[in-house]
C-alpha cells in the first residue's frame, strides 16, 4: 500500500547535521514540513536555493528547486530538457501537465506562451499548497489546477473530446513510480489526447532495469522518439504525434526560442546536442501493460 511511515528522517538528519557540523560551509535550513496523504514534504534552503523534497536524504530526491536570488533561472537539467519539447512544436496553445512538483515548469511555460492555457493535474493537495506558498506558483484562469489522479483526468478529458498540443508527464520520483502511469494503455490514452502535431515530454529517472522496459513501451506506442540524457538519473523522452521533426526543423525552432530560454539560464548550445534517437536499450525488453506493470520492482532490482 502506498503509505509512507510517519517520520521525518530528513528533518532528523538535518538537525543532526546542524548539531555536529557547525563548521559546514553553508547552512541548510528547513523552513517548512508538511505531512500529506502520500508523503512528507520538506521545504529547505541551502546554497542560495530553496528546494522541495519528499523525505529523502539523497540530493537526487529533490523535487524542485529555485535560486533565491533569481527564481526564474532553472536549477535542474531535467526542467531544461523538458523545455526541449518546444523545439518540436514551438507554439502550443493547450497544455496539460501531469505532476506539479514546485510548479517551476508551468510558471515558465505560461510566461513564454502568453496565449496558452495550462491544465495541471496533481494528485497530492499538499504539493499544490506548498508550491503556492513557497515556490510562487500562482494558478488562475490560464493555469488551472486539478487535484486528482493523472490517469483518471486523462481518460475523462479524452472522452470529453479535449485535445492538447503539449503534454508534460512529470509524475515520477525516483523512489516511487505510479505503475498505472507507465503502461502501453496509458500512453495510448495520452497519444489520443494529443492534437495531430501534439508533443509529449516525459520526465523519467531510469538508470535501472526499468530503462529498457520503459523504452520499449514508449516505442510500442509512438515509434521512434528523441531521448535526452545528461546524468544517469535524468532522462527526458520527447515525441511528436505526427512524426519527429528532423535536425533542421529543431534548429529553426531553437533559434526562434533562444531569447526565451536564455532568460531561464540556458540555451540551444547546451540543449540541442542532447537530442538523440539512438536506441541504447535492449529492444527485447518486455513492454509494460496494465496487465504487466512491476515498474517499482524493476526499478529496484539489483
Amino acid at each position: 500500500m502506498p503509505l509512507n511511515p510517519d517520520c521525518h528522517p530528513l528533518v532528523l538528519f538535518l538537525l543532526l547535521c546542524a548539531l555536529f557540523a557547525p563548521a559546514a560551509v553553508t547552512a541548510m535550513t528547513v523552513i517548512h514540513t508538511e505531512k500529506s496523504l502520500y508523503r512528507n514534504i520538506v521545504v529547505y534552503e541551502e546554497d542560495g536555493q530553496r528546494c522541495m523534497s519528499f523525505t529523502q536524504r539523497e540530493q537526487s530526491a529533490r523535487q524542485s528547486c529555485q535560486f533565491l536570488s533569481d527564481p526564474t533561472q532553472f536549477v535542474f537539467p531535467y526542467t531544461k530538457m523538458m523545455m526541449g519539447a518546444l523545439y518540436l512544436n514551438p507554439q502550443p496553445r493547450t497544455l496539460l501537465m501531469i505532476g506539479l512538483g514546485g510548479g517551476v515548469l508551468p510558471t515558465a511555460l505560461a510566461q513564454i506562451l502568453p496565449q496558452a492555457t495550462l491544465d495541471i493535474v496533481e494528485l497530492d493537495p499538499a504539493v499544490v499548497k506548498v508550491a503556492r506558498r513557497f515556490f510562487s506558483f500562482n494558478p488562475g484562469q490560464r493555469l488551472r489546477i486539478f487535484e486528482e489522479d493523472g490517469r483518471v483526468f486523462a481518460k475523462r478529458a479524452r472522452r470529453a473530446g479535449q485535445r492538447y498540443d503539449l503534454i508534460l508527464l512529470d509524475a515520477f520520483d525516483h523512489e516511487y513510480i505510479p505503475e498505472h502511469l507507465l503502461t502501453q494503455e496509458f500512453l495510448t490514452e495520452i497519444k489520443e489526447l494529443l492534437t495531430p502535431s501534439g508533443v509529449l515530454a516525459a520526465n523519467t529517472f531510469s538508470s535501472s532495469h526499468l530503462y529498457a522496459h520503459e523504452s520499449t513501451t514508449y516505442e510500442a506506442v509512438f515509434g521512434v522518439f528523441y531521448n535526452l540524457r545528461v546524468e544517469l538519473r535524468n532522462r527526458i523522452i520527447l515525441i511528436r504525434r505526427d512524426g519527429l521533426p528532423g535536425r533542421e526543423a529543431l534548429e529553426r525552432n531553437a533559434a526562434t526560442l533562444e531569447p526565451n530560454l536564455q532568460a531561464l539560464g540556458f540555451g540551444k548550445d547546451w540543449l540541442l546536442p542532447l537530442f538523440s534517437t539512438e536506441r541504447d536499450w535492449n529492444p527485447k525488453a518486455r513492454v509494460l501493460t496494465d496487465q504487466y506493470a512491476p515498474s517499482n520492482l524493476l526499478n529496484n532490482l539489483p
Partner: protein
Amino acid sequence: MRRLLVFLLAGWSGFLVMAVELLSGRILAPNFGNSIYVWGGVITVFMLALATGYLLGGRWSLVAPSVPRLAALLLAAAIAITPVLFLAEPLLDWLFDHLRDPRYGSLASATLLFFLPTAIAGMISPYAVRLLVDDSRRSGHYAGLLYFVSTFGSAAGTIMTSFYLVLYFEINQILAGLIGISWLLGLLVLWFGNSRDASKS
C-alpha cells in the same frame, strides 16, 4: 488426514483472498487511479465481504457439516472469481462513465467484482473450525490453529503476489492460476472426502 485437508483449504483460502485483494488495486487503477481513496474502497469491500462470509460460514456449519462441503465452498469461490477475467474491463469502463467520484467508483467496482468471491472464501474459516472441533474444551486451541494457518496463508499470498508473481506474470494469468489451484485443491479434497465416505459404508 481429515484435519490436514481442512487446514490446507483454510490456508489456501487465506492466500487466495490476499492475492486477489492486491491484484484488485491494480485492476481498478486504470479507471480510478491509485489514490488512497481507491485502496480505502478496496479494503473496505474486502473487510465487509469477509465479515459477511464469517457470519454465513458459521451459520451454515450448523447443518450437516462435512469436508466435501468445505471443498465445495472453495470451488464456489473459484467460480465467483472467474468473471473478473472477462468482465472487469467493460464493467469498469461502464462504471467510469457513471461515477465521477473515484471514492464511490472504486467502492462500487470492488463490490461488484470482488464481494461475492471474498464472502464465499470468508465462509471457509468458521466452517473449518466446526470440522476440527470434537471437544468443546479444545475449541479455542483449534480456533487458534486455524487462525494461524489461514492468516499465515494470507501473509504468503500477499508477499508472493506483490514481490514475485507480478514480476513474471500478467494479472489475468495470476488470477487464472489462483482459480486453477483452487479447483485442483477443491476437487482433491472432494475426492478424498468421498472415498472416505465410501470406505465407511
